[in-house]
């Protein structure tokens, strides 16, 4: 069946479910439905390990009976299960409280145009092809260096899916998307020291992935470079977050400026709109309609149109991010951020990665962050780290079993430079980030 036809069928289901909800007493209702088919194939030591055929889908509905909300969802898409799901949602709305802020997004905010964002690049879900790619990656990885003694395996995933959203304002829109990825994790040994590291590539297009051999070699290069890691002394030094781990720094910013954290007064960036958070040269743009983008969408999870936004302008907090509910709690309107952000591009200072090491001089290059020691309420930051000790711009030796700590407010203000070479494998595209004066805890 053609994908357009499948989407049309799902739109019909969404339509039926919305009608059913209204028939049972809902004043407003919204439903979303997704279906994803895929394969996940892994190899280990150049032999096929797992072949998984995945097939996921589900329908979620929220109903509003006056200002009372109820939600329900199902992975079982039989007519009987759908009817039960609607009934359950209505039933729940009998017990939730009246809440003046609840309800669908404002009708005038609904997306009305749906340009093709080039998110769907289908290819046959062929396990044989997937096996070859995974084994190619591992072969290159195992041949990279004699210190690579073992493998945690390589894995190739391909997913083809679609998402439909509809509500009783009349919007009922869907689009298909694809996602391909390849990852490889290797184990190296030197004396008693055993280390692992990985590499991965992800794209909407099957031919947008890095070559398998390159991914394998990168995994082994990263693994070997960690061998012989040492612990360093407790100190205050500049820290260079490698681009592979730097996006998390902006992930915390997303949490802190999200409406949900604001109306709960649970953010260290509460009441800071317009204030200087980052250095003046730093801008962050959101581009929801980036062609082929991993976080692209014409509308958010409530049907609200997405728009380009200068989230950070000249280092200032230019916009908070709101869903419909959080915007009403804060007396404003939705910014189209139900379900998260859409492609953030972090500004840079024009440095290459090598320039950044020079710019740092002596300090710590961080290539791995561990744990969840970050509080968006206070901005307090303390995470496990591994990486490399750098002196006069030159990498000296690998470092592990240390923490880096500070407070996000100071860390953001202390960003000295951001590299121009970006990691584009996620919703936040950033280069490596150089932060002055962080506390390293070690010996």
């Amino acid at each position, binding site marked *: 069946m053609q994908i357009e036809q499948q989407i049309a069928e799902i739109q019909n289901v969404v339509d039926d479910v919305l009608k059913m909800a209204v028939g049972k007493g809902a004043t407003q209702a919204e439903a979303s439905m997704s279906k994803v088919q895929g394969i996940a194939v892994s190899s280990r030591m150049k032999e096929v390990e797992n072949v998984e055929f995945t097939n996921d889908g589900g329908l979620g509905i929220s109903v509003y009976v006056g200002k009372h909300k109820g939600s329900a969802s199902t992975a079982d898409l039989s007519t009987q299960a759908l009817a039960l799901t609607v009934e359950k949602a209505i039933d729940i709305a009998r017990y939730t409280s009246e809440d003046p802020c609840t309800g669908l997004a404002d009708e005038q905010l609904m997306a009305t145009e749906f340009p093709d964002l080039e998110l769907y690049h289908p290819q046959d879900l062929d396990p044989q092809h997937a096996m070859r790619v995974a084994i190619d990656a591992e072969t290159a990885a195992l041949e990279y260096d004699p210190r690579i003694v073992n493998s945690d395996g390589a894995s190739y995933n391909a997913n083809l899916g679609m998402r439909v959203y509809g509500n009783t304002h009349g919007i009922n829109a869907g689009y298909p998307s694809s996602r391909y990825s390849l990852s490889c994790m290797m184990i190296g040994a030197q004396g008693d020291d055993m280390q692992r590291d990985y590499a991965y590539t992800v794209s909407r297009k099957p031919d947008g992935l890095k070559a398998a051999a390159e991914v394998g070699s990168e995994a082994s290069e990263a693994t070997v470079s960690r061998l012989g890691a040492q612990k360093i002394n*407790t100190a205050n030094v500049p820290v260079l977050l490698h681009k592979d781990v730097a996006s998390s720094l902006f992930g915390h910013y997303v949490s802190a400026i999200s409406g949900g954290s604001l109306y709960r007064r649970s953010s260290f960036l509460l009441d800071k709109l317009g204030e200087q958070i980052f250095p003046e040269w730093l801008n962050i743009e959101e581009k929801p309609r980036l062609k082929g983008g991993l976080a692209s969408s014409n509308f958010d999870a409530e049907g609200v149109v997405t728009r380009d936004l200068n989230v950070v302008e000249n280092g200032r907090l230019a916009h908070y991010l709101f869903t419909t509910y959080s915007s009403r709690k804060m007396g404003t309107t939705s910014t189209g951020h139900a379900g998260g952000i859409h492609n953030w591009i972090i500004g840079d200072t024009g440095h290459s990665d090598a320039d950044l090491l020079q710019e740092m001089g002596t300090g710590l290059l961080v290539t791995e962050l561990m744990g969840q020691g970050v509080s968006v309420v206070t901005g307090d930051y303390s995470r496990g780290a591994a990486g490399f000790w750098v002196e006069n711009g030159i990498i000296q030796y690998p470092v592990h079993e240390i923490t880096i700590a500070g407070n996000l407010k100071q860390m953001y203000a202390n960003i000295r430079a951001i590299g121009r070479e970006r990691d584009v494998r996620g919703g936040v595209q950033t280069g490596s980030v150089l932060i002055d004066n962080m506390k390293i805890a070690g010996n």
Partner: protein
Amino acid sequence: MSNNVARHLLTDSGLEISSLEQALGQIHRHDTDYADLYFQSSQHESWVLEDGIIKEGSYNIERGVGVRAISGEKTGFAYSDEISPAALDKACKAARTIAPAGGTHQVRGLSQGSYPTRYEQDNPILGMAEAEKVALLKAVDAYVRKQEPGINQVVVSLTGVYEEVLVAASDGTLATDVRPLVRLNCSVLLESGDRRERGGAGAGGRHTYSFFSSDENGRPVYEQLADDALHMARVNMQAIASPAGTMPVVLGSGWPGVLLHEAVGHGLEGDFNRKGASTFSGKMGQQVAAKGVTVVDDGTMQDRRGSLSVDDEGTPTQRNVLIEDGVLTGYMQDKMNARLMGVKPTGNGRRESYAHLPMPRMTNTYMLGGQYDPQEIIKTIDRGIYAPNFAGGQVDITSGKFVFSSAEAYLIENGKITAPVKGATLIGNGPEVMQKISMIGNDVALDRGVGVCGKDGQSVPVGVGQPTLKIDELTVGGTA
């Protein structure tokens, strides 16, 4: 075997036990050593109170079958969110493509083993009227506001899960299980001038919701949770910057057992050891922890969050001693890794759902108690940290490096607990830290039933526990 479970998952969908034997036979027409079918239905609900009102309620239903075919070290897997003869047949034919046609293995006749039930069999979602669930949330909110009259933010959530599973395998295993799971969480935010601090606490287990109103030391469980949440926020309101560097650390009893889960638990899972990927690989029989340290993983504990009557491969759970008096004595195994390593499965084969492959996973992992009074332990330290409460953790099982983040901690100065310090990440190396445990308290406790363990993208409920422990050296990731 529960006839109800078999009826709900099979008969109602036009399947019989004989259809399962036929389906497994279909898979064995290819060159496979083992195959299993995992039928599951689950209901999940959650209720959230915020701003003093019942803000959200949701209900989720899920139902499906997962089919696995194993040939040597290779696994083929397919699943369907529909249970029907046609869907089962399709999934079997997809899974068996892992091996070429022409199998020799026979399917053993399915027969139900016997095993004790480790928890209540009632459906918590149906076991309490909606109005009562709402009343429970409001009671927690009212209690918090009575203790802290000016408080602005109180969030209370209640979740309940009811699952029915049926496992049938080509080795003749046939097992059913009925699994309730409930949880209550309370989160508060205190403000003073510009300063804001959060506190949270949760509890649960394989119970019905009445557990939360039941008495524990003469007061309802929910009141104690609310007190704990408020206590954490109040302590953190006074907290000064945490020190940075390597120092002695005393971990409280109960939930700080997250340490064991990360420092040794994952490293003792069978798959990592079969592959030689764990820092504990090949160390069976060796001294891997200080003398006096005994760690068990016990899936049989009554009503615990991490407990299972049978695991997700139909193996009855057991009490597995992983480390005894510091010596490594056992790994946690599922069927496949046990077979490949030439040992018996230990009842640790778990999966998030029918749509996920089973792996060796922990159940309730804890350290047995020792001889010291916790106060005696504190007295031995001139300068260090006392950490009675933690947030999550993470481990790299290959290098052994693990982290976990304190949620409530204090300085120890001259043998006394003094100022509270801000949350900080603690980092160490599993095998080294286990050797540096120098004092073990006599106050062993399990957590209150809130643990979630993630591995390869799959989440399962677990329990952790330990007595108060002194670790001679651990790196504390503060700023001071």
